């Protein structure tokens, strides 16, 4: 119990320290800076919310969400000629099908989640190469403004991200399938013995992750008006880092979407502050890495008690 209090104290101090460090950084609270921060959080945050579900159900992480995001952007842009809504729905369906197929392999056939996601990644990259011949895709139709701009001064991307967080947390705490996912992640055998379909729960987690990645892809494509398969490069690792920094257990079973929101914010704030304070490139990478590592270690120690 005592270690636990110490860990809690360290956590509060850490958050407070980061907050003070941020707020005393000149320009951090300026509109421009906050907007840049919100944008950065939004795109990576959506993927991280999806990743939370994968981690929570005990499947560690997916290396395929970044590629799903990129491929979704390509699908969205090239199907725009059919109209904005059909294109959006088609993209959503695509993202869901791609990851749900992986969920089925992992849930029903007990395939290793990491290997399945690597296979998914290779298939997506290969498939996109075949389909596009490796060229950048530009919008095949109009109407992208729907996904750009601001409402009440807040970027639409950020609004969308917060909606995702709310929806994700709702699914997790208020729905039966959400509870089932936490049970499967905590103890899959006990969940089976309690009459829960573990395979269905795992598949559903991947469905959510796919939907999140797809919508992130749509937003990125709309914002920059073009897309290629490198759009989502690096998103998988940043997302899992955010999930872990938030304190979702890598073994599954314990965690929440709100925690991931905190994790994404903490990482983004640190990066922004280091940039604003003019640290050299090398130091930025080094310090961010060290902070992420120590926060995750802190959780591990707290878990062990």
């Amino acid at each position: 119990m005592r270690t636990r209090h110490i860990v809690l104290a360290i956590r509060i101090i850490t958050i407070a320290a980061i907050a003070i460090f941020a707020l005393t950084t000149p320009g951090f609270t300026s509109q421009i800076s906050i907007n840049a921060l919100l944008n950065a959080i939004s795109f990576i945050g959506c993927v991280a919310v999806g990743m939370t579900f994968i981690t929570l159900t005990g499947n560690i992480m997916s290396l395929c969400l970044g590629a799903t995001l990129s491929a979704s952007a390509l699908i969205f842009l090239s199907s725009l000629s059919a109209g904005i809504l059909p294109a959006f729905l088609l993209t959503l369906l695509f993202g869901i099908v791609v990851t749900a197929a992986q969920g089925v392999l992992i849930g029903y056939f007990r395939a290793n989640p990491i290997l399945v996601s690597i296979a998914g990644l290779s298939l997506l990259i290969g498939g996109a190469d075949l389909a596009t011949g490796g060229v950048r895709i530009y919008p095949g139709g109009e109407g992208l403004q729907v996904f750009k701009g601001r409402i009440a001064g807040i970027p639409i991307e950020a609004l969308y991200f917060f909606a995702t967080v709310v929806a994700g947390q709702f699914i997790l705490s208020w729905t039966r399938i959400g509870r089932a996912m936490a049970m499967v992640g905590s103890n899959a055998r006990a969940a089976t013995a309690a009459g829960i379909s573990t395979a269905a729960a795992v598949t559903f987690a991947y469905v959510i992750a796919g939907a999140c990645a797809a919508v992130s892809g749509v937003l990125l494509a709309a914002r920059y008006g073009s897309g290629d398969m490198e759009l989502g490069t690096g998103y998988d690792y940043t997302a899992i880092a955010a999930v872990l920094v938030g304190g979702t257990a890598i073994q599954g079973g314990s965690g929440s979407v709100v925690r991931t929101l905190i994790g994404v914010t903490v990482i983004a704030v640190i990066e922004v502050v280091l940039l604003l304070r003019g640290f050299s490139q090398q130091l930025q990478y080094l310090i961010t890495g060290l902070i992420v590592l120590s926060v995750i270690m802190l959780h591990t120690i707290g878990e062990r008690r």
Partner: protein
Amino acid sequence: MPGQPILAVKGVTKRFGPNEVLKKVTLSIGAQEICAICGENGAGKSTLVKVFTGVHQVDGGVVLVDGKPTAIPSPLHAQELGIALVAQELSLAPALSVLDNIWLGNRKVPLFHRRKELRDRAQAALEKIGLGDLPLETPVSQLSIGRRQLVEIARMLTRDARVLILDEPTATLSDVEIERIFSALRVLKAEGKSIIYITHRLGEVFEICDTVSVLRNGELVGTRPTAEIDREHLMEMMLGRNMGEMYPRWDSKPGEPMLTVKHLRVPPIVQDFNLVAERGMVICLAGQVGSGAIEVLRALVGLAADATGEVSVAGQTVRLRSVAKSRAANVQFISEDRAGEGIFLRLSVGQNLVATRLSDHTRLGILERSKLRATASRLASAVGVDLKRLRSHADELSGGNQQKLAFGRSIGGDDPGVLLMNEPTRGVDVGARAEIYRLIRQFCDRGYCLIMASSDIEEVLGMSDIIVSMYRGRQIGSYRRGEASLHRVLADITHPVAAA
């Protein structure tokens, strides 16, 4: 008992926190001797073994090796002294060959060694225990459990072990395999080795051992040569304790038949199991590990993938092999593996309590959280879990309280159903045990149909309206309350006459 003892303990005491698990135990093993150590679960047998093998250090008394007081600070040290444990959970590496496994972890293999010499010595060890025909290259994963145990013994021989400790070696073996182990042990004994043989099965004590020492509650009850003692006497030594207090008093009130099982097969253990269980009754399947009692209950709740047979609950046929279907038919289950299969350690106490009731608290896929909380509170009070702990993580609870969660989860429907329990008090301390027994009786009075599988003979006698004794997958006997004698049941589950 020729010559001076090879290994002995004198007045050894071992404490874990406030619990004394060994109390001034004194016993010794000579050369060319097979010494049985018997006792119930929790009697202190495993702790004693761990003292011999250097895992635990004593809090009082001395360990004597060759008559001299000796400290055994680590398992490595024990290996160097020639004391070797053939563990219950085998420590072989399945992917490696027999040869590699025999030499794995042996500290005496020099960095530059001659492969040929190692092969010869491994071959010699295998021949000694009757495995001379086994190719050294065979991967261990291809061997039966019995043969693996023999390979493990061969490994100990190459380490020049003088004292071999076998912990429940026959628990999961077939008759033929047990016979192989016995003949190997006889050869080793003739060679001058000492063997400590830990077992539940009394028949084996008389078949293979020279002396038997009985532990009870951490104390040594006594040591006798097997030639001077009979089975009845040995049982009395093991069970000589007051059985009142612990178990609630009750009157059997048989109700209408609730659960009918016909021709249940659970490969590879259970061949043909039949049972009619009534409401308001506690039925105990009494049996050791490997008796099939646990497997029967697992199959009834849908957790055995290849079980076949006819099962009906309240006249309705229930499909086997589906947990969801069984649960829907109001068949609830408490697993024997609490940490592995029972409790969600990273979820809260409240979430654990309602784990099987989610479908009753969902509308359009959305949980009715206030109703869930009310149910969790109700179940917590029903099984005596402090309401303040509803939000704590389940892993903060003691074993007894965790078991209460498993109970809470299985009761509380409006319609009393079938409750299946595997080893309901395993790893639970005495106080919580009594509470759990009271709970079981309460359910019984409310019209539940309860079936429990247990290897704890005292519990079986103390709790059941009907006892079904089982041995290696077969039903041996069936007794109504009062008809069963302790000796009879113990004989059934350890060494039934019919099976001899």
